[in-house]
């Protein structure tokens, strides 16, 4: 999944949590929301998705399939191909943009990645610079001499050594430091009010015990990574508030419900201390303090009923909104591009027996990015792809591939030969071995059209397929996924080029294709003794007719 997809699918969950929080913030134990924000953070920062049959994305997928059915009804011409001879080949997935995270050699970084990097850096500085500046001041705190505080600290020892110090730059108590926490007390506090001191210290120590500073940093990281997503910013603000509310709730539980008004008044007193020169009033702040006070006053004992309600609600929200569609990891992409795969239920396999009418766009400036996706081609005549593949299997080659620059063939011993002069001279090329697991991971992140033939490739990789890697002079790279079923080529190239591959399983044509290119491809098949010259000619002319008739953008260069 790309970062954008992660962001979008997490947004759905965040929206659900925001809605739930709006309705039930004062009704449920605050733990509930801490847990939900935790799930959101995992979604945002850990690129793993969990599937569920009850996921909202499963439902969306079903709906989108219902609405896209008309597109999949075969045209009259193509319906004649249905009679057992039509083949849809899952196409090779070719990289449309430079990879986001190159596996080995760093190729060019796309402008979008640059924009993201700039945003990320600015955002990170936005957090780090003020933090460092304030930390410098926090360090100037002086030891505090107060008997009550000393005694209190002795009876509340934590695993980490906590320092309590005093600072006259601040007006409300605060805690900083994750591993060596320091509680800073403002100077203008009533140090004789022991009740208030106990509240403050318990509050700050609760933050320390729960590593709340660390939580806030993780929230900050999620905002930096997803800076382009406004919902993540909203989550940041609300989750920070909920950390406070959860802490308040714990303090009240500890001191007993009867202390609620005292605690709330202590809070208002601290707010009062802040009143100073500037008359600036933020309505947002009013809301957050008010929310905090209402939350404190409404704190109730957790009954079994509220507990069960909370657990049930959390479970259903997580299952519905935080999981991806059943059986298809990349459900979101399919919603965006429903025609990418005719039926999500069918695992991409050898011959699916379904029909699509795909458009092969012109390889011209006019073509948009979406037009330049890899394409299925329906082969319908007697010298059809299955037969080509059979002939290929009988030949000395496991796969043949061609693009504007090279002819390539994978030999029976999995060595790779390349010709740069239309098949006149063939040279053996040395490849690097790539770890299949690493590659599988890399592919998950970088595949431009995830979910396409992804599942199949991933299972091949998991079942011990070998991965070879080849870098060309012009920054083009190829990964060969080789197992006993065949060879698949993953092409990584900065520019858009059309290419054709036929291997042990299928034929794939990526991006746009011209008549010239198709001709060369049949020449390649002939020169490699995969097809006889007559068959090649016949098949070629029929293919051209088919393409010209069905695809107005098809370029015929004679």
């Amino acid at each position, binding site marked *: 999944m790309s970062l954008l997809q992660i962001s979008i699918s997490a947004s759905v969950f965040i929206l659900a949590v925001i809605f739930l929080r709006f309705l039930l913030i004062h009704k449920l134990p605050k733990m509930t929301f801490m847990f939900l924000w935790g799930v959101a953070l995992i979604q945002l920062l850990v690129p793993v998705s969990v599937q569920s049959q009850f996921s909202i994305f499963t439902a969306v997928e079903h709906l989108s399939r219902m609405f896209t059915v008309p597109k999949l009804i075969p045209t009259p011409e193509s319906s004649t191909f249905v009679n057992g001879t039509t083949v849809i080949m899952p196409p090779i997935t070719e990289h449309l943009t430079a990879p986001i995270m190159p596996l080995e050699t760093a190729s060019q970084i796309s402008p979008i990645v640059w924009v993201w990097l700039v945003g990320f850096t600015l955002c990170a500085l936005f957090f780090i610079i003020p933090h460092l500046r304030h930390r410098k001041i926090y360090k100037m705190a*002086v030891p505090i001499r107060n008997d009550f505080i000393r005694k209190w600290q002795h009876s509340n020892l934590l695993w980490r050594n906590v320092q309590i110090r005093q600072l006259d730059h601040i007006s409300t108590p605060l805690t900083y430091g994750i591993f060596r926490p320091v509680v800073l007390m403002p100077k203008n506090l009533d140090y004789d009010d022991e009740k208030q001191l106990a509240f403050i210290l318990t509050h700050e120590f609760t933050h320390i015990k729960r590593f709340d500073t660390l939580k806030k940093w993780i929230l900050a990281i999620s905002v930096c990574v997803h800076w382009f997503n406004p919902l993540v910013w909203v989550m940041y603000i609300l989750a920070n508030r909920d950390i406070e509310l959860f802490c308040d709730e714990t303090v009240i539980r500890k001191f007993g419900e009867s202390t609620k008004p005292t605690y709330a008044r202590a809070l208002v007193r601290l707010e009062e201390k802040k009143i100073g020169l500037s008359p600036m009033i933020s309505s947002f702040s009013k809301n957050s303090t008010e929310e905090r006070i209402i939350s404190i006053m409404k704190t109730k004992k957790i009954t079994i009923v509220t507990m069960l309600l909370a657990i049930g609600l959390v479970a259903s929200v997580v299952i519905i909104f935080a999981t991806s569609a059943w059986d298809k990891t990349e459900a979101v992409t399919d919603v965006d591009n429903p025609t990418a795969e005719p039926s999500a239920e069918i695992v991409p396999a050898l011959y699916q027996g379904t029909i699509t009418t795909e458009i092969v766009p012109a390889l011209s400036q006019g073509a948009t990015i979406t037009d330049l996706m890899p394409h299925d081609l329906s082969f319908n005549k007697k010298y059809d792809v299955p037969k080509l593949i059979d002939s290929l299997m009988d030949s000395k080659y496991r796969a043949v591939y061609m693009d504007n620059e090279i002819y390539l063939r994978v030999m029976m011993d999995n060595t790779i030969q390349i010709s740069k002069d239309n098949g006149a001279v063939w040279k053996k090329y040395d490849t690097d071995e790539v770890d299949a697991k690493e590659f599988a991971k890399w592919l998950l992140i970088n595949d431009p059209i995830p979910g396409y033939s992804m599942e199949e490739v991933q299972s091949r990789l998991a079942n011990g397929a070998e991965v070879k890697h080849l870098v060309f002079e012009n920054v083009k790279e190829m990964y060969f996924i080789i197992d006993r079923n065949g060879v698949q080529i993953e092409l990584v190239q900065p520019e858009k080029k059309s290419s054709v591959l036929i291997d042990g399983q299928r034929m794939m044509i990526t991006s746009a294709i011209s008549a010239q290119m198709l001709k060369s491809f049949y020449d390649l098949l002939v020169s490699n003794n995969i097809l006889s010259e007559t068959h090649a000619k016949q098949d070629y002319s029929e293919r051209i007719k088919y393409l010209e008739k069905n695809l107005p953008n098809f370029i015929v260069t004679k």
Partner: protein
Amino acid sequence: MVMKLFDSELNIMEILWRDGDTAAKRIAEITKEKIGWSKTTTYTIIKRCLDKGAIERHEPNFVCHALVTREQAQEHETTELINKMYDGAPDRLIASLLGQKRLSTEEISRLKRLIDSME
């Protein structure tokens, strides 16, 4: 002349008033033992005192000399700059942008009434 000084700065001045002119290095040793400041922190505070004109320094060894007397120094009133600082978490700027502005007197009394009504 009256000079407003923070507690941290007063701690440095205290040493100078008590021991007379002292080298920065020596001040750092004292504050480390007495207050637990790192050398960097002590130097930062000395720098602030210099900028305020509370002390001056002499080469060699960065010897510090108090320019104000104990009587001229006054504790800084906390309310002035506190407001922008809220907690030790990484949300400083956002907190001040969005959440943690001070409330008006009316707002405070409204909140007090709210507590009373919910009690």
